[in-house]
């Protein structure tokens, strides 16, 4: 005889104590806004209560709540990027023209990469550069930052990022490329 798989139970009377800080941490690393992160934790629990009937007991309580939160974070990403999108891409187009000669696609002389130290970046000694990188990342439009966060923090495959943020694969590569060009330029300018 085989033992049946464990069935997880939901115990909302214990949710805040057990998961609030964990979920808050999860949210804040992904959206970087304390007030909004706090709201999302609250919404997650309330949505969880509504959806209790659909809990099949196959995942742990924490995994289940985290999945709800994750969907809410993606909604935030979408909201942050919608409306801005056209404007951002047009704006970025302008920046592209700045980096490269419009006629032949070559680097403009003043924008061509120069060695500035990032080439020797060593993660063990890299802490001091984090503040520069952070500053440069904060200058990126919200959509770009969302893509980087999903990609690097959650190791989401490209297809998933595209599907969740509702962008085409072609657009995804354009976003990544422009973000990289801008980041690189910002780092070269500010590196100590």
């Amino acid at each position, binding site marked *: 005889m085989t033992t049946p798989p464990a069935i997880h139970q939901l115990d909302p009377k214990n949710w805040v104590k057990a998961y*609030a800080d964990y979920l808050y941490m999860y949210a804040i690393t992904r959206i970087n806004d304390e007030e909004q992160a706090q709201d999302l934790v609250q919404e997650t629990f309330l949505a969880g209560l509504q959806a209790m009937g659909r809990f099949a007991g196959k995942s742990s309580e924490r995994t289940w709540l985290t999945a709800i939160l994750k969907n809410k974070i993606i909604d935030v990403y979408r909201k942050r990027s919608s409306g801005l999108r056209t404007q951002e891409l047009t704006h970025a187009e302008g920046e592209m023209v700045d980096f490269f000669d419009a006629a032949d696609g070559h680097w403009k002389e003043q924008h061509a990469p120069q060695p500035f130290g990032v080439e020797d970046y060593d993660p063990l000694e890299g802490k001091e550069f984090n503040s520069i990188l952070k500053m440069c990342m904060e200058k990126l439009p919200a959509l770009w930052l969302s893509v980087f966060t999903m990609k690097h923090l959650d190791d989401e495959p490209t297809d998933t990022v595209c599907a969740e943020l509702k962008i085409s694969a072609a657009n995804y590569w354009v976003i990544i490329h422009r973000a990289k060009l801008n980041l690189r330029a910002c780092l070269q300018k500010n590196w100590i």
Partner: protein
Amino acid sequence: MNPLKAIIYNCSRATYLTDKRLEGKITFRESIALRIHLYGCAACRLYVKQSAKISEMIGDLLKSQPPQGVRLADDFKVGLQERIDRQINKN
């Protein structure tokens, strides 16, 4: 211009392919075109190096966050649990 010539003379395209290649999503054709461009372009060869390092740095930075000990305020938590309890009793 044929596609090969287009890439040889185009750093904009070459850096685009560089970033695509970093995620392993480049086609065979694109890969050849990129190599040919890089062979003749020192600025883009440097970009290849820097772009890879920047990706590495972003990964390290995002994964090192947040500062430990980020917690919700206690009174917020008390209020939240009360709200949940009220909701449970309603159902």
